[in-house]
């Protein structure tokens, strides 16, 4: 086990209780602090804060509406693909390939769903944690996988959709390859830290 990994796991173990309370405090205090900071700085710089807020906010409504058609199109396609059973079929075909290279079979579906659908992935992660236990190898792996990657297809749809980009270039390929790296990294790191396969 590389030294840095030992260090991280030791910090996480030793700081257990304090870390939880610090994280709780941080997530509660951060947003209020940012809001207060911006408003105070605006007042000092003599920005007409309320009018500026309203002016900036108006843009938000327009953006939200312009995303709708992009998201409807993408989500309907993904939901059809999943509901028809085609996704399960494809995963069934690829599962042997993944297990052959030492990839734990239980998390193969999660690895596939993660870049495509955020809600489905979250459901799958909860399910894996509930079934195998949060401190099991599979439970830990599902948690790290869920936490370390994002729903690439959703991000691309929303960001490109909001500003009306039609040609995505290499963005999808780069995003999906990065997801693959994240998933492989999760398996290796969790195997080293928590034992298992």
């Amino acid at each position, binding site marked *: 086990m590389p030294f840095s990994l030992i260090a*991280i796991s030791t910090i996480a173990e030793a700081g257990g209780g304090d870390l939880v309370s610090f994280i709780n405090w941080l997530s509660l205090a951060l947003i209020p602090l940012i809001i207060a900071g*911006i408003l105070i700085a605006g007042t000092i710089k003599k920005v007409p804060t309320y009018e500026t807020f309203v002016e900036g906010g108006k843009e*938000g409504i327009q953006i939200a509406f312009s995303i709708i058609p992009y998201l409807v199109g993408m989500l309907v396609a993904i939901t059809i693909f999943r509901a028809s059973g085609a996704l399960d079929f494809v995963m069934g075909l690829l599962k042997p390939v993944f297990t052959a290279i030492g990839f734990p079979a239980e998390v193969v579906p999660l690895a596939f769903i993660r870049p495509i659908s955020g809600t489905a992935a979250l459901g799958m992660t909860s399910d894996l944690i509930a079934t195998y236990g949060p401190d099991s190898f599979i439970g830990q792996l599902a*948690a790290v996988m869920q936490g370390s990657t994002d729903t690439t297809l959703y991000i691309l749809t929303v960001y490109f959709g*909001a500003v009306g980009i039609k*040609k995505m270039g290499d963005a999808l390929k780069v*995003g999906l390859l990065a997801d693959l790296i994240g998933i492989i990294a999760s398996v290796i790191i969790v195997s080293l830290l928590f034992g298992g396969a």
Partner: protein
Amino acid sequence: MVNLIWVFLTVIGLVYAMFNGTMEEVNEAVFKGSKEAVTISIGLISVLVFWLGLMKIAEEAGLLNFFSKLCRPFISKLFPDIPPNHPAMGYILSNLMANFFGLGNAATPLGIKAMEQMKALNDGKNEASRSMITFLAVNTSSITLVPTTVIAIRMTYGADQPTDIVGPTILATLISGIGAILIDRYFHYRRSRRG
């Protein structure tokens, strides 16, 4: 590419449903999918209005500019096509920071603003610029300090130490982030060689 993927997902799903006897589920999926999309978009209005309003104040007060000056050395290497004083830098940085601290709600509006600025830099063309691809590559690998949702799930199911996945998650996300940047560079290199 998007057109192909879109048609592929839909048509394969439809054809598979015919043989698999899941036509009913597919009919339902059409309505469920579109409804979910609208729900998400409408739900975004609240955070978009609030954070874009607030960020406008930050921009006018010069906070965004100050912030981007602070991190310029690192970030301008990542986005060589964006002039260091351009507002796009400020938005990119705030988006990355919001993601880093797990403020997903604030991150989306900032990211959209960053994309808007990058589109302006690209003469308003409707194709993705080099900076946009880099930005999205970094974004999709989701570099997060605290994966709050996962910790919450682990708490619900009674983990001994709900937060002991924080270290491994940061490590994994760092590796995928670095991987994303390298892959992005490789694709850019390939594009520029082709002309």
